[in-house]
């Protein structure tokens, strides 16, 4: 329970951002980011994927420099040119993706660059070791401080990031989805630490997609949408529905709804799929004309399931059958031939060949089919094929040899979708299909997916965005910690029912 009994906040806020903007090439990550952190308070920052939260964080951390806007620390304007400067100014950051040095020990990772010293600038390993142990005790975790960071679970990596930040003894502590991969117990410990830091008068920022956490920990909440500040409210004065409405910017109802389609016979049949330590006994079916939603918290194992089904990763047990014929494991090429397609989660790394042209990206998956006698392929044939698909999905591009790295997230996503539709799949798996793409494109993607279903495709849609899942899916599978914890028919699918299955908490 959040204790309101905290020392009265000092006048000047610890950190203040005013109408910050930041763009990457064509992508506008942040339009007007505004945020105020006060001493002895924990502020929550919520927003859909791609709302710009992490970008804001990275600007506070000094990793990115804002294109415009004001950045005040203790009331004084600052301009960090590097993360080192921000650190020196007393800002500690836990990034969304852990950034550890795999070859160094846990202790060294925590103290890199500011190790305790003895005479002759010699590192004092003893006291360093002792401090590390003390930190872990405070966090109540058991990690061997002398082991290498390589091979640590995401959870442990996250813990070490937290220990790092705490040990900095900073005035401002930023936590970007620190709980994404943590179990309940670990989360509780983290919260205890966060509260004690707050009570010491430090200013904290807490980013999370889990509302129960936000309400349990934070004093007030700031909502962002599409890179812009929406509102800030005391936790006491708001509720989940209010926040969700502001996050999504419209009622769930007026998202593009899936059109009714005649659901045919089973196309994809996954039985008892198991991969030690990542997911366990996953079974589900996808029928022709059906959109199956796969919901869950970040870190639940959904992407891993998708990767295994498509053969990118191997798996320990279970079978994948497509239209009656068995799909061999660990062989994407075979899965593609069988009629599977996967639009992966990480667009920039897994979906696109950054550095290659639109045409090359649109045809890389069908290069065999395009080539004469499976042998020779020419730029002309590639251009013809990609011209068709680019125009079908209305990819915005000056020419087919334009470099996709420069495209906006939404436009990139269209290229990825086109690339996979070009393989003429029978079952399409989309992982976070609209993560970080603008509302307009989002609607287009939704329209497209339901249209594909209408044409008899089977679609498995992994998404962390409830409105999307609820609006699109005929059936919703919910995963938690590597298992399918619920299968909910469209009729009974509500935010509450899904969230309950996803968090396991009695919301």
């Amino acid at each position, binding site marked *: 329970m959040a204790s309101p009994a905290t020392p009265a906040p000092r006048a000047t806020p610890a950190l203040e951002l005013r109408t910050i903007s930041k763009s990457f090439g064509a992508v506008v990550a942040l339009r007007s980011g505004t945020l105020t952190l006060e001493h002895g308070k924990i502020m929550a920052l919520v927003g859909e994927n791609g709302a710009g939260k992490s970008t804001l964080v990275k600007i506070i951390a*000094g*990793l990115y420099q804002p294109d415009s806007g004001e950045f005040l620390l203790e009331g004084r304007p600052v301009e960090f040119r*590097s*993360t*080192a*400067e*921000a*650190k020196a100014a007393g800002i500690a950051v836990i*990034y969304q993706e852990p*950034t*550890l*040095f*795999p*070859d*160094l020990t846990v202790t*060294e990772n925590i103290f*890199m*660059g*500011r*190790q305790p*010293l003895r005479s002759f*600038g*010699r*590192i004092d390993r003893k006291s360093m070791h002792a401090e590390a142990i003390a930190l872990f005790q405070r966090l109540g975790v*058991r990690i061997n401080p002398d*082991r*290498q960071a*390589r*091979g640590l*679970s995401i959870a*442990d990596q996250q813990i070490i990031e937290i220990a790092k930040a705490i040990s900095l003894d900073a005035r401002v502590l930023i936590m970007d989805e620190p709980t994404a991969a943590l179990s309940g117990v670990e989360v509780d410990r983290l919260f205890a630490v966060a509260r004690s830091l707050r009570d010491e008068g430090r200013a904290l920022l807490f980013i999370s997609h889990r509302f129960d956490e936000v309400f349990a920990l934070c004093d007030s909440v700031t909502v962002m949408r599409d890179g812009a500040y929406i509102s800030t409210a005391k936790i006491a004065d708001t509720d989940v529905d209010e926040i969700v409405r502001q996050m999504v910017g419209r009622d769930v109802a007026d998202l593009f709804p899936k059109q009714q389609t005649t659901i045919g016979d089973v196309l994809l049949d996954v039985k008892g799929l198991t991969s*030690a*330590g990542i997911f366990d006994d996953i079974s589900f079916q996808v029928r022709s004309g059906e959109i199956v939603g796969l919901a869950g918290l970040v870190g639940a194992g959904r992407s891993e399931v998708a990767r295994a089904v498509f053969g990118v990763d191997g798996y320990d047990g279970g079978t994948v059958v497509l239209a009656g014929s068995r799909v061999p494991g660990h062989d994407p090429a075979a899965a593609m031939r069988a009629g599977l397609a996967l639009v992966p989660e990480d667009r920039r790394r897994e979906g696109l060949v950054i550095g290659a042209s639109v045409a090359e990206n649109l045809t890389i998956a069908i290069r065999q089919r395009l080539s004469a006698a499976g042998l020779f392929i020419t730029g002309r044939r590639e251009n013809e094929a990609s011209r068709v698909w680019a125009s079908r999905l209305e990819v915005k591009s000056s020419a087919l040899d334009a470099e996709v790295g420069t495209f906006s997230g939404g436009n990139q996503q269209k290229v990825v979708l086109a690339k996979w539709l070009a393989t003429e799949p029978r079952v399409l798996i989309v992982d976070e299909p609209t993560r970080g793409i603008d509302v307009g494109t989002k609607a287009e993607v939704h329209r497209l997916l339901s249209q594909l279903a209408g044409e008899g495709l089977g679609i498995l849609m992994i998404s962390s965005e409830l409105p999307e899942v609820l609006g699109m899916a005929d059936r919703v599978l919910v995963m938690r910690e590597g298992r399918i914890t619920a299968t909910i028919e469209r009729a009974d699918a509500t935010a509450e029912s899904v969230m309950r299955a996803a968090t396991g908490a009695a919301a």
Partner: protein
Amino acid sequence: MNSLKRLTRARETGILLAFLLVVIATTVKNPSFVFSQDGFRDLLVTPMLVLLIAVGEAMVIITRNVDLSVGSVIGLTAYTAGTLFKYTDIPWLLVALIAIAGGAALGAVNGLLISIAKVPSLVITLGTLYAFRGINVLWTGSNRINSTDIPNDFQMIGTAQLLYIPVITIIAAVVLIAAAWYLRNTRGGREFYAIGSDPDAANLYGLKVGRRVLLAFIVSGALAGLAGVLYVARYGTVDSQAGSGFELQAVGAAVIGGVAIFGGIGSVWGAAIGAMLLLTINRALPVLGIQDFWQQAVVGALIIAAIVLDRILALRQARRLTVMEDSQA
């Protein structure tokens, strides 16, 4: 107990054992390999030039870079020193310092090109490998420095001993210990490993990546310069090809010594022992009755074996850890 465990598990220990094995086997076959004044001396002296550049090379590789130009740097600095001896009467200590500074400067050329222009070190140093050697040949032509041109008191260094330990060995040992101490016990030294372990994370963390990489190359160059000076002292004669091919020996020694070619892992100790093993094997094979044409083959097999071994060890450790995680969960 912890330190003992670390010692037994250390990658360097294995390579040290291999080295001792070679020495023992050879000595059994022929006692004078160790138990004769010159045998003992050569055991300690012969590997020292490669050892020095291997230490520099290790520091560079640990930052996920590589320096292929060290051989050419030795050539240039050795001829510089020789020329100074031949045509001037600058005191030899000053000559040595000049050569070392020259090596550092050449290293700085590499380092600046790499850290500022953000160009892969493999390409840059391959280029300077050519360029430095070419400059050397242009300058030297068909001249050579003969042992008669070198002041005797300086040549003495090549063979002189301090209570049975050759001076060259002492110099190398001092350098080695200093480098090892820096890498292990200072913030800067640890940053070398952090950078090599994950350069992007190092940037995110706010480490001064460029500056460290530059430093690594300067050190590597300076040590090559020192090796050049000692080359003159030991071999007395310098022509335009002095030190050619040393770069592969240096990289080989580092790799054999357990320095991972992609950075972040390894120690200058390992590289040093690797150098000892590499050059001692060369001398041991004939004693053991293996025709010396096969020496390189043995060296190659050794390098392959070393990296395969490292790979296996890494996999084994990874497995052990995951098992641990599961048992905890």
